């Protein structure tokens, strides 16, 4: 099962390659401010995703005298993200369906 930070990092890379801080900003926006990745967390996740072949380096750019490294989603990363999104959607559907049948304790079921 994919961790939440890994899930958001992969989503952040779907449309375009991004550098480290760019990923942090995109994840913050995608999660509506809920997931604020720290640098240590981000690079722990990136190292793992690169090692698993889900993300790969795209290019390096110089920005204000520093080298920015960009990362992009791989085909394998796209497949993993799709599978994870479908799994989460199925879970959410199951939960929603069950929640519709819920009645507060004490009301019981009509017999």
């Amino acid at each position, binding site marked *: 099962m994919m961790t939440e930070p890994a899930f958001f990092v992969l989503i952040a890379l779907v449309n375009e390659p991004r550098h480290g801080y760019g990923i942090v900003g995109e994840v913050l926006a995608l999660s509506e401010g809920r997931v604020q990745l720290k640098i240590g967390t981000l690079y722990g996740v990136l190292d793992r995703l*690169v090692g698993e072949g889900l993300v790969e380096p795209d*290019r390096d750019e110089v920005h204000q005298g520093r080298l920015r490294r960009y990362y992009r989603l791989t085909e394998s990363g796209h497949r993993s993200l799709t599978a994870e999104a479908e799994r989460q959607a199925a879970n959410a559907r199951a939960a929603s369906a069950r929640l519709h049948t819920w009645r507060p304790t004490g009301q019981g079921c009509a017999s």
Partner: protein
Amino acid sequence: MTRLEGRYRRVLRLLPASYRRVWEEDMVCAFLESVHTDDPEAAEYMADFGRPGWPEVASIVALAVRLRIGSAGAPPRYAAWSEAIRLAVLAGMLVNAAASTVGAVMTLWLAGMIPLAPVPVLPEPPGYPDLWHRVSLFSALTGLLWLPAFLALVSGRWAAARWLGSAAAGTALLSAAVTVAVTSQRISGEVAFVLLINVLLVLAQAAFHRGVVPVKRRSWLAGVGVCTVVVAGYAWLQFQFMTSLPPLDWAGLWCLVLVAATVAHLAGWARRRRDRFTAWTPALAILAFTVLGLRLVTLLDFARFGSAGWHPATVALGIAEAVAVAVAAIILLLLSARTLRRLPATAADGIAWSTRPSRSPHNGPH
């Protein structure tokens, strides 16, 4: 380099050097961008007096710990190191389980509570009040907690193993403190060392976490049976020669076992493909240094308290055992370093990173 950057790089030193080699520059770049401000005055102040915030530092500490205990998704080198720690912890717990079981049976037998055989009349140590006997009994019975702790660890019930191990280590500490208090005796190096190892055994159980390969239950259960027989045999020998103890003391017994295990391991290693990694090499290295520590503190105990009652050859044999275990420990350490160094230290190792500035911002697929 600004002072802020220097401070952040100092925090990054918590990470393994091999990991920093791949990721440090990128992490520094991302961090500096995260604290960047367009206000030149604020930027200058930040560069001179700013510090990485606690949440940033905590994320680096957490990453350093995760890498070193080989948590899920850890790079191969740290995953292998973590496996070695788990094997060493299992071996340590196995010894504690076997020794405490034999110890409890012996204590109950000597107290006349188990009619195994006629109880020998042992000379009563001077200055040991009745409370000491009760503490000794308490210590022996609570020591039995190591057995369920070991069984829980082998069965994959890691939280239960941690609780039971903590209880066993805690009560052993309490018993030692009460014994020192009621007998006004100095604590021996051996007891202090064993208490320290108990605590380390509990802490090192952090290496058992989600994603870890299940323990080979049958082998470890057979192991605890064999170890119990060895310890019981050793205890029986001690009682057979009560008037003149054999030259092999408790630390000596483990030196012998460790050297035999090392020889068997090296023979197996020579037969296999030599480059193949096995977590038993670093695990045995950890155990060898632990046994060496035990051997050295017990030799120091002989120097502090004398070796009266022991066989005259015990100290000389102990020195020879220390040398043999030290040699085994060094060989195992060198082999471990050689094989571990060949494993990737970051998950991203092997990926061809470009470290040159880009030719064009649009040269990659989008």
